């Protein structure tokens, strides 16, 4: 156990997401936990990491976690600020950005995402915000890391709407659709890390967080999640990681 004592499942999720950026050159992020994780990665693992927000700020160096993707601090600290058409056509669509962090209301077994509606599109039970930049970001950034809370409501057998393609209906679907990025390489939740099987492209349980059981993960997943042998346990957050994360959130 860390000298900081207990840590929350949310803290582990943020720390694990940040670790995935240790060697990345650039990361595309939205607000909330993905943004926190990317700033943490810059503080602890990778000071040269380029943060790209869809508001057009490339190389932003925020001191605080921004509330919106267009906060003034992002523009003031960026290497360059570009228009939205330029962001999508020159930077996202070309695969210049290495990793993209994406969230969603629903995730399915092939890492496809729904952020549009719960229920029928024409008569939705819950109208969600919609696609935003996600479809093209997931299509063309070199790899995608999905960050989502691990509940049965989120990890569903069947999406109500496919906003964003992960692996589509299975292997080779991305190539068939002309999506040039690799697709989701990991789904980081507050319980575990899921990774696509190299053959089937189906998400499998790769890693569980400290104190979490395989049964808990299976119980919170809406389909029969394949488990690869006995999954590795996530190394606990270090004192350095936890101190930096807590300090960041207190700013």
């Amino acid at each position, binding site marked *: 156990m860390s000298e900081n004592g207990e840590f929350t499942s949310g803290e582990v999720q943020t720390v694990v997401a940040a670790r995935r950026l240790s060697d990345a050159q650039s990361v595309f992020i939205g607000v909330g936990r993905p943004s926190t994780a990317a700033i943490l990665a810059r503080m602890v693992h990778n000071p040269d990491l380029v943060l790209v927000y869809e508001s057009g700020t490339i190389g932003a160096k925020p001191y605080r976690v921004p509330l919106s993707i267009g906060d003034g601090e992002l523009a003031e600290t960026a290497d360059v600020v570009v228009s939205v058409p330029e962001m999508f056509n020159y930077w996202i*669509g070309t695969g210049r950005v290495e990793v993209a962090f994406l969230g969603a209301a629903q995730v399915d077994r092939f890492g496809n995402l729904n952020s549009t509606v719960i229920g029928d599109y024409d008569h939705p039970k819950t109208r969600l915000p919609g696609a935003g930049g996600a479809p093209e970001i997931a299509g063309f950034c070199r790899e995608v890391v999905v960050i989502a809370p691990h509940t049965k409501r989120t990890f569903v057998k069947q999406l109500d709407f496919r906003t964003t393609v992960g692996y589509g209906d299975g292997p080779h679907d991305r190539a068939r659709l002309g999506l040039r990025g690799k697709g989701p390489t990991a789904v980081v939740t507050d319980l575990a890390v899921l990774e696509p099987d190299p053959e089937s492209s189906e998400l499998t349980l790769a890693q569980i967080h400290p104190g979490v059981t395989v049964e808990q993960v299976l119980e919170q997943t809406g389909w029969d999640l394949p488990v690869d042998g006995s999954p590795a346990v996530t190394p606990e957050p270090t004192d350095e990681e936890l101190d930096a994360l807590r300090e960041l959130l207190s700013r």
Partner: protein
Amino acid sequence: MAELTTLADAVASLVHDGDSVALEGFTHLIPFAAGHEVLRQGRRDLELVRMTPDILYDQMIGMGAARKLVFSYGGNPGVGGLHRFRDAVEHEWPRPIELDEHSHAGMANRYAAGAARMPCAIMRGYVGTGLERIANVKPVVCPFTGEQLMAVPALRPDVAIVHAQEADRQGNVQLWGIPGVQKEAVLSADRSLVTVERIVEELEPRPGGLVIPGWVIDAVAEAPGGSLPSYSLGITTRDNDFYRFWDKLSRDRDEFTEWMREHVLEGVTAA
């Protein structure tokens, strides 16, 4: 040449019932004052166009000013959903609303095509998603390489309204910070209104500054603080507390309506 006028006069002459109106600003420079003036003047049946309908469009939709929404992300950035937008889609309150929904990349390309007076833009995207089914997009084949691409139709709003930091007395506008699709929106529309924080004698070049010449703008109106609770970089600061406050207030139809009556409809029209 842009006419320097009051916000009330500009809205009265440029925005008509039934118009397609794009009030743009990507988190930054959202033209709240102008949107509120449109509501005060009682414009109806608008087709509202905007990549990121946030609080301003939540207010306009909740007041029943919109028959249609053209958009790519309808959320309260960093906070959650938009309750008036949701109520309109889920329960048709206060009236049904038609949706024309795209991705950000699609909307950005649609504006750029409109600005270029091209009928469509060509891009990679939409394939394999539910948007391909619901959005007005069509596959096309590149005549040079044979690659399968997607065409999206140009956006040509009747009116574009954006906010900027400053304009000179000839109506030349300068903005800096996040440029969003401000220039594309103005150039894609038949008529345009730019509200500014201040009128200056001479525009002073800024790092990253974007200038829109006055001769492509119909009207410029001074509206200090006109983007709040969004912001104008270097002049005003984003009121993040208001975005959180809106999430609570806007959940209730009556509280929303009362707040709008008190703070917007009976608010003072900017001089």
